[in-house]
């Protein structure tokens, strides 16, 4: 029986993880782009990313591209697994198939 994940279930974090898991494994998305895509504020996205990072579900990398600071975010393997399990648990609740 799959278990729901408290960290992921929060609506904004669920959106963040959905977006990150939609990328290929190892692919990183830019902070500002993700913020605009999910229509969040800097502070809101930053705070939820900190929670996800603390859980080991995402990796946040600050770097310079063409001398400009940019922040990239990626879902870790642990984060992808936790997300998948969370989805399975949600499907079990509604009585659907597991995958």
């Amino acid at each position, binding site marked *: 029986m799959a278990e729901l994940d408290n960290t992921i279930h929060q*609506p904004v974090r669920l959106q963040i993880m*959905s977006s990150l898991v939609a990328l290929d494994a190892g*692919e990183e998305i830019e902070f500002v782009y993700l913020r605009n895509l999910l229509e969040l504020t800097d502070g809101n996205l930053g705070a939820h990313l900190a929670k996800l990072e603390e859980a080991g579900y995402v990796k946040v990398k600050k770097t310079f591209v063409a001398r400009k600071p940019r922040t990239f975010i990626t879902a870790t393997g642990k984060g992808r697994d936790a997300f998948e399990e969370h989805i399975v648990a949600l499907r079990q*609740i509604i009585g659907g198939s597991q995958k």
Partner: protein
Amino acid sequence: MNVTREDAVQSLAQVEEVTMKTKQALASAYAGPFLILWGFIWIVAYLGTQYFPVWANAIWGILSLFGAVGTVFISKRRYSQGPARKSHSARQFMLRTVLFWPLVFVYACVWLNIVKPNNGLEVNAFLVTVIMFAYVVMGLWFDSWIMTALGLVVTAFTLVGFFLVPPANYCLWMAVTAGGSLLGTGLFMKLWWR
């Protein structure tokens, strides 16, 4: 954690929506500018060929060069300033796809020399279908239904143009249908998949 069936349904719907939105936004950011560029080039080149047939080779030569330069420029810009970055293994994968297009070009040249088409119309229909075959392959490779659909639709338009449209109107037909499909798809992605 107490989650009701309604909460679960709502959460899964949200996941599906965000997943789709992310994939579409990235597809738009990466493929959109190329489709707009080449759609525009094809429309101008076909219309130029239709109304100034004497200049056809020069028109296609200049515009293709412009397209190649534009493609490299957009690629470099997307690579350094794009919204997503690939991991090392994915970068290798991307490099292979960048090599794919010159290889398509080389093979098209080889086949042209073997097949030896009789006229410009045959050369054009041959090249367009080869390029669209590459679109279909890339669409299947990247699991992009829009690339596959675009390749198949433009191929169908080309076949209709080649077999059914009077040769005198072929370029006009291709400007509207083939060029229009590329440009229209690119604009659709930019406007609705942002």
